[in-house]
């Protein structure tokens, strides 16, 4: 009996099977890097070691953290990124959106792959039944040079969602509730596998939000076994779903199991300064706000934009709304079906397809004492702006309803009869 994580790791390690706790060396199927932890950090290391890339066709570089630039240091990082991409001949998606969204959108992921990403939200790839995890730049340099990485075979923590979410409740709420209950180290750097009716009823972009926030749950990877929805998405993106039926965990293989009820879940809000400070929206209702940020890999994909627009349509927000669509393609899709027009009519400011304020790099940051509701993944003190700014995390529905009222609000009344 083996879990999905064990099956993928065993295959990548060239073994029949592996057991939790043992340290194995895996062949890497794909490495993803971005402009922050990528060329500017790894190139000097590769030079120092006098080595090049193990396989440039398996390296995907995506610029997103310093896009669009605008100050000398950020512009310099972007220029270095572009020059390195050209010199090395790696696969390069320049300013096309946030890496975790662009990678699957361009067909780079498939079930059963072992993928290393130079970013902590790399567990997003687990939505496709891949074992994907994040590392720092020095470790990534080792991967780029050798095509290998060591890992300690994780235990699998299985999260079972029974029933289906009710209207106005989304994957972001599921993750905030989990993190609130289990803490930011509840995942213990093990593999977290999401299953049950409530998960398989979700679209791929929603599943990506689940897998993504495994980072805030403290897991190494967050997996969802592939099904027909996965195979269809991968094929439509130009990828190869392959033998996806084979990449399933054996029933009962996971030792630790938590059961949750999707149907009774309420929208969640995480208060400053931790994603673990989450509670049903009622607990935070009425909290005054200055700004709503609809952005990030975990909060501004096409479906997130659609959710926010469902509430903002025909309504005037009482505060500033910033929208940073997670990828150029998602923005184009949202333009085509009138979603972007809703944001424009609502007076929202549209920001570039990049990490933006979520990463808090560069100059676009929240000012002193600003109170923000955000669809992003982290509300650590000072992350998105001044140390005195405060961030509440919530779904795009909740962020939009709060924008309309100028204070934290339950989105569900807005969706009644919709």
């Amino acid at each position: 009996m083996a879990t999905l994580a064990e099956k993928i790791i065993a295959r990548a390690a060239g073994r029949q099977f592996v057991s939790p706790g043992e340290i194995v060396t895996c062949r890497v199927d794909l490495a993803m890097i971005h402009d922050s932890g990528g060329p500017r950090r790894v190139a000097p290391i590769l030079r120092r070691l006098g080595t090049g890339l193990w396989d440039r066709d398996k390296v995907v570089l995506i610029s997103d953290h310093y896009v669009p630039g605008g100050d000398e240091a950020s512009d310099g990082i972007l220029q270095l990124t572009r020059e390195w991409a050209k010199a090395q001949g790696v696969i390069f998606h320049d300013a096309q959106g946030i890496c975790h969204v662009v990678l699957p959108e361009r067909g780079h992921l498939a079930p059963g792959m072992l993928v290393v990403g130079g970013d902590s939200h790399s567990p997003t790839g687990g939505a496709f039944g891949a074992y994907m995890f994040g590392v720092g730049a020095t470790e990534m340099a080792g991967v780029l040079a050798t095509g290998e990485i060591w890992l300690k075979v994780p235990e699998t923590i299985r999260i079972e969602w029974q029933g289906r979410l009710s209207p106005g409740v989304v994957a972001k709420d599921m993750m905030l509730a989990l993190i609130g209950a289990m803490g930011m180290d509840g995942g213990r750097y093990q593999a977290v596998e999401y299953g049950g009716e409530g998960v398989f009823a979700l679209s791929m972009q929603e599943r990506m939000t689940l897998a993504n926030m495994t980072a805030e749950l403290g897991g190494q990877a967050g997996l969802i076994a592939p099904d027909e929805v996965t195979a269809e998405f991968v094929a439509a993106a130009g990828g190869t779903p392959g033998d996806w039926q084979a990449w399933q965990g054996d029933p009962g293989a996971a030792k630790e199991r938590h059961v949750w009820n999707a149907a009774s879940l309420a929208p969640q809000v995480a208060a400053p300064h931790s994603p673990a400070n989450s509670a049903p929206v009622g607990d935070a209702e009425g909290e005054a706000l200055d700004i709503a940020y609809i952005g990030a890999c975990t909060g501004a994909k096409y479906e997130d934009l659609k959710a926010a627009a469902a509430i903002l349509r025909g309504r005037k927000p009482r505060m500033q709304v910033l929208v940073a669509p997670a990828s150029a393609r998602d923005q184009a899709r949202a333009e085509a079906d009138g979603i972007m027009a809703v944001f424009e009519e609502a007076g929202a400011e549209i920001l570039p397809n990049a990490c933006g304020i979520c990463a808090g790099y560069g100059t676009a940051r929240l000012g002193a004492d600003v109170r923000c509701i955000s669809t992003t993944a982290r509300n650590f003190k000072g992350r998105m702006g001044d140390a005195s700014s405060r961030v509440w995390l919530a779904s795009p529905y909740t962020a939009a309803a709060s924008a309309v009222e100028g204070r934290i609000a339950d989105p569900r009344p807005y969706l009644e009869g919709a």
Partner: protein
Amino acid sequence: MPRAWVLGDDIDTDALAPGRFMHRPVEELAANTLADIRPDFANAQPGDVIVAGRNFGAGSSREQAAQALVIRGIAGVVARSFAGIFYRNAINLGLPVLVGNPAVEDGAEVTLDIDNATLRHEAGETGLEPIPGFLLDMVHDGGLVPHLEKKFRGKA
């Protein structure tokens, strides 16, 4: 005499490596490590030790979070637990990270012994979980890159 800097749970990478300095030279970032939550950390001296609670280094994969402490000469971090990516980054950059829960006060005089996995303090000595052998070698070499350089030189 080196001192202990006692911090709480979930000390995150954004506190260790503030985003507003991520595009700046890493020395400038290191000068501002922990500034948002412990402004007096600016007074930390080389050889000082961080003693923290659960999940130290939570959040981002930015290894500048560990590198900042190396640049500042911090002898190591002792915490009840570490976030996974941070732990790997720390070893890869030569920052000793040991799991333990010593009862020391903020500012107490301490000495960290990474080979014997102990923290010495006024009240005696607290045993820590040792760094696994193959990772300890890497720490002694100053991290993954010097470790690989040494290995390659050995082969040449």
